[in-house]
């Protein structure tokens, strides 16, 4: 296998599923994610999205950065790294987390997989080896980037559990949200976690690269009866905005990339205060976050239900007296919520649930620009949140 540190020798990287995704990508639409070429869309964004919400869809998330964190200090290391209490993530469980710099500003978010005693995998969108290594000073811990050693597919949507059962993974229906389990697969092992980025029922499948093509083929064999389709980044993006999830580089600027100190956000300012556990005596950012709690935050992430049907792309947000108080970071017309929805960052104290704000939307019709001041309502929680996301066992099809 090609060692990770040789990655720079190649300009374009291919995921272990590439032979299959290339065949499926009849539109031939690609973009780069962490140097890997991945599909924007395979055949039709709307239909891919529709498959996700009504049947199920597969997304190749192999370019996700994965780190293996092992050693006697793996738990204390992770607990100093992230803001939540990692001791509460038991073996066989996955936890969503964020990590901050000393100023309490978010560097990235990700998931911690507690594989076994002193064995963890940290998944993130951005490369983090530098930050993790620098954070490891004084800990007896080994950190290895294993991004290229693990291929991954997200299988998401209402029929996803049925597809896995048809694949022969008996007992997969017993997985509760954020649980994981290994299954024997094609002479190797398949790790299945009930996780995802769509706000729907779904799983993520983790496999060694040499088992990747077999996994894709057998998934599509088993999934044919259940409406399984491949899904590109555009459809995934729609589902994550509906779920109200934030994305690094889009809804917040990773603190280690920021030049201007007011451009970063703390967990509180990203509506992730629930991930901050001050009962832990020390973690990076703790002092600054305590201070922020005392003084109050500067910003608030809000989910907006925007009047009308025009997506509020990059719109300024105004208070009722027409002062600019923030801007939209993600927006779309939500087919499930039947509404124009948006994520926005606004100055405190604006953005309390139920509050009415205004979005200045520019849109084009046949090359003519129009401007619209749309009323927005601050809503709590996800725009789309089907009960099946939490049900165990999930509904059968």
């Amino acid at each position, binding site marked *: 296998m090609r060692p990770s540190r040789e990655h720079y020798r190649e300009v374009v990287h291919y995921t272990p599923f590439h032979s299959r995704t290339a065949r499926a990508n009849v539109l031939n639409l690609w973009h780069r994610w962490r140097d890997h070429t991945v599909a924007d869309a395979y055949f039709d964004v709307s239909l891919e999205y529709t498959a996700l919400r009504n049947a199920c869809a597969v997304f190749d998330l192999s370019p996700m950065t994965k780190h293996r964190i092992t050693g006697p*200090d793996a738990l*204390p*290391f992770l607990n*100093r*790294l992230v803001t939540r209490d990692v001791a509460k993530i038991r073996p066989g469980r996955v936890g969503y987390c964020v990590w901050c*710099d*000393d100023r309490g500003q978010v560097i990235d978010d990700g998931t911690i997989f507690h594989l076994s005693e002193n064995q963890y995998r940290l998944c993130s969108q951005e490369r983090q080896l530098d*930050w993790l290594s*620098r*954070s490891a*000073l*004084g*800990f007896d811990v080994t950190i290895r980037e294993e991004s290229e050693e693990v291929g991954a597919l997200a299988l998401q949507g209402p029929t996803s559990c049925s597809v896995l059962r048809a694949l022969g993974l008996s007992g997969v229906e017993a997985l509760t949200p954020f649980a994981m389990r290994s299954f024997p697969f094609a002479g190797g092992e398949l790790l299945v976690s009930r996780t995802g980025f769509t706000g729907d029922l779904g799983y993520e499948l983790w496999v060694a690269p040499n088992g990747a093509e077999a996994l894709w083929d057998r998934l599509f064999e088993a999934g044919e009866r259940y409406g399984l389709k491949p899904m590109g980044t555009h459809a995934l993006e729609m589902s994550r905005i509906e779920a109200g999830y934030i994305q690094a580089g889009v809804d917040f600027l990773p603190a280690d990339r920021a030049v201007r100190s007011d451009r970063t956000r703390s967990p509180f300012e990203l509506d992730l205060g629930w991930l901050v556990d001050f009962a832990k*005596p*020390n*973690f*990076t*950012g*703790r*002092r600054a976050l305590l201070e922020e709690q005392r003084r109050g935050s500067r910003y608030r992430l809000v989910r907006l239900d925007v009047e009308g049907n025009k997506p509020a792309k990059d719109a300024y947000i105004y208070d009722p007296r027409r002062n600019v108080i923030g801007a939209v970071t993600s927006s779309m017309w939500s087919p499930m919520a039947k509404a124009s929805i948006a994520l926005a960052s606004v100055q405190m104290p604006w953005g309390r649930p139920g509050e009415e704000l205004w979005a200045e939307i520019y849109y084009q019709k046949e090359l003519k620009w129009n401007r619209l001041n749309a009323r927005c309502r601050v809503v709590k929680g996800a725009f789309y949140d089907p009960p099946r996301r939490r049900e165990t066992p999930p509904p059968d099809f």
Partner: protein
Amino acid sequence: MTDARRAVVIGAGHNGLIAAAYLARAGRAVTVVEAATHVGGAAVTREFAPRFRVSAVAHLVHLLDPVIVRELDLRRHGLAFARERLRTVALNPDGEALIDDGGTLTGAGVSGTDQANYKRFLAQMRRFAAVLGRQHGRVPPRLAWERWTDAWPAAALGLDIRRLGRDDMREFLRIVTMPIYDVVEEHFDHPLLKGMLSLDAVLGTRLGARSGNTVFSYLHRLSGAAFGPGGGAALPRGGVGSVTDALAAAARLSGIEIRLGSPVAAIVVSEGRATGVRLASGEVLAADTVVSSADPKSTLLSLLGARHLEAEFAQRVQHLRATGTAAKLHLALSALPRFRGVPVEELGERLVIAPSADCADEAFNPAKYRRYSEQPILEVTIPTVHDATLAPAGQHVLSAIVQYAPYDLEGGWDAAREPFRKLLLDQLERYAPGIGALVVGQELLTPADIERDYRIKGGHWHHAELTIDQALMLRPVPGAAQYATPVTGLYLCGAGCHPGGGVIGAAGRNAARVIVRNEP
């Protein structure tokens, strides 16, 4: 006493004892824990050969804060000086030495121009150094002001510089980050004069004469005026250890307990707060406040542990430049040696071997690449000329600070110690023919030995390089520059803090003031 807030001070060096004394005066119940079986830290007088004693690390006092001497009544506790206002004698490999008596140059054919320029130069340097000296007793300003009162220390520093007047201020700001080499080249001709000033600028540092910041380290050296006008040096009677002995006596009088032979294994942290220290014996001493006079890396990365710090702060501590390059040579001599070109009445002065600014820079070159100097530069004292308590009657002690002997020597010091020692004796022999035959005992302390014996990580005399990037509000690192560390209840009070090394004592006093203010 049982109701008093308890403080444990790590290390019975001068700063530790001073912090302890001031804390006790503020009503704290103070225990000082010291690894060695005697007080003093690196300000200690020690027997290095039978019946020969020497100031083991620092061997002169330039900067000791007179306010502390007065407030702690150290003279009553035995502090006395065998000699103050030491002259500097720049040894000449080819003839008569150059003598600097507080700014007046004589000998070695020094020109009238150099003499006049040096007087003017030194007067200006003393004005600049006084600006630094005025900061010693102040807690460094914060860069981020949370309260308007935080702006005062910064404003006071700015005002001190502004009050120099236009021309002085311009010159101060122009040269403060410059290499001493360039500045002495601007002013002087005589190579011995330029060598002497270069040596004063690099002594104790990991810098050469052509390194930036050496004007700053020169000014630091001149920033005390207790023992003669800026830069005056003194020989404590009984060696530098008598300073810490007096401090210990003063501290004990304030009701402080000093526990010797009690190395600290760890600072105990509970719920993010320092709650005491665990000794190597396993015994735990509980405290409301833990004050460490150990160097910042030992305190924060070894005794505390990076896991109790946030990641970026721990990185800053890790990156603190604190690698020693100064060694110490001690010779027990059966008689007073003679140095070429030096009148016998000058042998008790500060003798320096740095024949030119180029020599002071070239000596540094090997140290950059982890090798020792083949032509080292030295500051030599023969304290027994003024202080008979240190050696048997008629016999003498020579104490030399030697640059450069890098801590991280390639191949390690075990193999290099003997050739380096021999090289040093050869070097001395060139200036003092016959000195080798007088040697009846000797000791070489490399930075590796200093690290081991005095528990200073990296063996750096100042605990951390004293340059502008590690001075004032940047010393030792931002986030701990006002003596409080990010861990509640844990404070630093050693030479790694403002105002730095050189047996000043102000760090201990400032730290105690901050503690009393923060934790009333």
